[in-house]
């Protein structure tokens, strides 16, 4: 307790100073999230005019209330929008925490092999699932690929941690290098699987790696929300230690931070949140990299703000991207992973361009 108090005291001054800027930021982000969610619920390929939308939301038997309206809204659209909120927040939080750990703005959940591990396991399940597991695969049903992907993400994280740890200490540089190696290895095995896959499996695999929120059903929302909640609480408790880590590992150590414990908890939390998200949505790039980056240029480096605001911004980005994915080419659907980059990149470049003036 005394340890964390000293860290807390060190950062109190800066927190108070940035309070005004932060509250504007939060207000804007909350407003954007509200707008995105309202639009996400109100709009979709299946047209529900506004008056009927209210009735359907309240499941109130109004004039012209079709059972289909209620079903589309409650069983398809709402869980999907919520899944986008949860996964967007989880990916952005994961990215934010890893950028803090690596003290590098280029870090994201893909870097330490989480996505690659998940993708490899999903590919195994898609290509060899029927042969390898047989009856077990069938009993998993719709959950086979998510379960495999989660297991793959966890295994990749564990392996990277083992590779990077020596005598009870984990080297951040080794984490990074091991992550790169695991990424390359998984990529090679996925390539091999693509080679032996038949046409059907190949196409399913391709669509999995493009990402989609089509899995959005209530049980999935509950599972991802639980993972986000657990991981989020852990990261929130680590926020001050992450701030201390900004000063460098030895400085953080001398401030009383148990750096090794911090790394383990942080990796566990990120693996849980991001692993579960990726398991259900496939690979959705960009959000984990850019949401925290945008937030930091805006609200400063304190993790108290960076974590919260990243989660909000990640949710906004993914809900908007999914709305576009669902409506742009309706009644067809675009892969959402394509749109997150399409929507996020111009915004990101704009921010960078504005900041460049500051460097001159």
């Amino acid at each position, binding site marked *: 307790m005394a340890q964390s108090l000293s860290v807390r005291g060190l950062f109190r001054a800066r927190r108070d100073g940035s309070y005004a800027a932060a509250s504007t930021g939060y207000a804007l982000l909350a407003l954007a999230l509200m707008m995105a969610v309202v639009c996400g619920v*109100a709009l979709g*390929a299946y047209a529900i005019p506004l008056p009927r939308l209210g009735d359907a939301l309240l499941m109130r038997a109004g004039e012209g209330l079709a*059972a289909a309206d209620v079903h589309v809204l409650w069983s*398809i659209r709402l869980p999907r929008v919520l899944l986008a909120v949860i996964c967007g927040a989880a990916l952005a939080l994961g990215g934010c925490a890893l950028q803090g750990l690596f003290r590098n703005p280029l870090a994201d959940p893909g870097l330490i092999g989480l996505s690659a591990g998940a993708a490899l396991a999903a590919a195994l399940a898609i290509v060899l699932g029927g042969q390898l597991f047989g009856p077990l695969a069938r009993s998993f049903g719709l959950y086979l690929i998510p379960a495999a992907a989660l297991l793959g993400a966890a295994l990749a994280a564990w392996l990277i941690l083992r590779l990077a740890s020596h005598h009870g200490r984990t080297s951040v540089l080794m984490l990074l290098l091991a992550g790169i190696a695991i990424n390359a290895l998984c990529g090679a095995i996925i390539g091999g699987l693509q080679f*032996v896959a038949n046409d059907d499996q190949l196409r399913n695999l391709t669509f999995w790696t493009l990402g989609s929120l*089509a899995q959005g059903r209530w049980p999935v929302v509950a599972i991802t929300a639980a993972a986000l909640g657990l991981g989020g609480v852990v990261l929130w408790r680590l926020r001050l230690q992450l701030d201390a880590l900004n000063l460098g590992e030895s400085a953080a150590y001398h401030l009383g931070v148990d750096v090794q414990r911090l790394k383990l908890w942080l990796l566990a939390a990120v693996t849980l949140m991001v692993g579960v998200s990726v398991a259900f949505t496939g690979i959705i790039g960009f959000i984990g990299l850019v949401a925290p980056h945008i937030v930091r240029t805006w609200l400063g480096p304190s993790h108290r703000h960076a974590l919260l605001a990243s989660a909000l911004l990640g949710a906004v980005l993914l809900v908007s991207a999914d709305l576009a994915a*669902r409506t742009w080419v309706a009644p*067809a659907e675009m892969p959402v992973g394509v749109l997150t980059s399409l929507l996020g990149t111009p915004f990101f470049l704009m921010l960078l361009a504005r900041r460049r003036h500051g460097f001159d």
Partner: protein
Amino acid sequence: MSARRIWLKRAAALLGTGLLPLSHAAHPAPPGLTRVVSVGGDVTEIVCALGAEQCLVGVDSTSTHPASLNGLPVVGYMRALSAEGVLSLAPQVVLAASQAGPPVVLRQLADAGVKVVRVPAGYSFESLLAKLDVVAEALALQHAGEALAAELNARWQECTALVAQLRARRAQAPRVMYIMAHGNAVMVSGTQTGADAVIGLAGGRNALEAMEGYKPLSAEAVVAAAPDVIVVSREGLEMAGGVEGVLAMPGVAMTPAGRAGRVEAFDAVFLLGFGPRLPEAVSALATALGR
């Protein structure tokens, strides 16, 4: 017009498409008939061959034949359907080829009260009849189904007679290599593919029978396979830059087909669709091989 105004207009258009039920009005099914969304090129061709084209309120992106389907709403690629997108067309029946998906979406459609009928796949004439059975029953068109089956049987008999006749003229079945070219990737067909099956039906022999599925083309493997004829899709032919382009592919010049310049191009949907045009497709390929 300034960039901002263009964006505003687009945003308004996006809002509009979401709020106005416009797709229903554009393609009303005649009263009394089922509203059907058909997923899979072969399935859609069967629906049309049954004379039920006016039931269709939407098709997937692989349903390109007949050309009269052109104006119909497209619900996307058959493996990446959108539940809400399909429901927005208010179908009573969704005819889904076995590759259609994702599974979650099909389950959501069934939960929404839509009758989802899975149509079995297969690369044979028998499987075509099985598909026809399922589709005809789903649309309550059993009589039309039986009539079409009889007609297909007659056409198939003509087709097999032609294949046997052409076959009798030569000592050995010609070795055939099917090339699929999309973008930069040039793939050749091994066994267990539609191309392999149609080559066999047409009295040819797959030159690459040692491997399974579509695999990247390798110059040495092509030379070793020694095809007498190269079959390529129209799109593939265009992509490769015509017959000369195909002949210039690595290894091809050193094969019997390359030396004789024997490249045959077909519409891929026609040749590999395994829909009601299967007898014609097999006859056309057999004729081309017999040339």
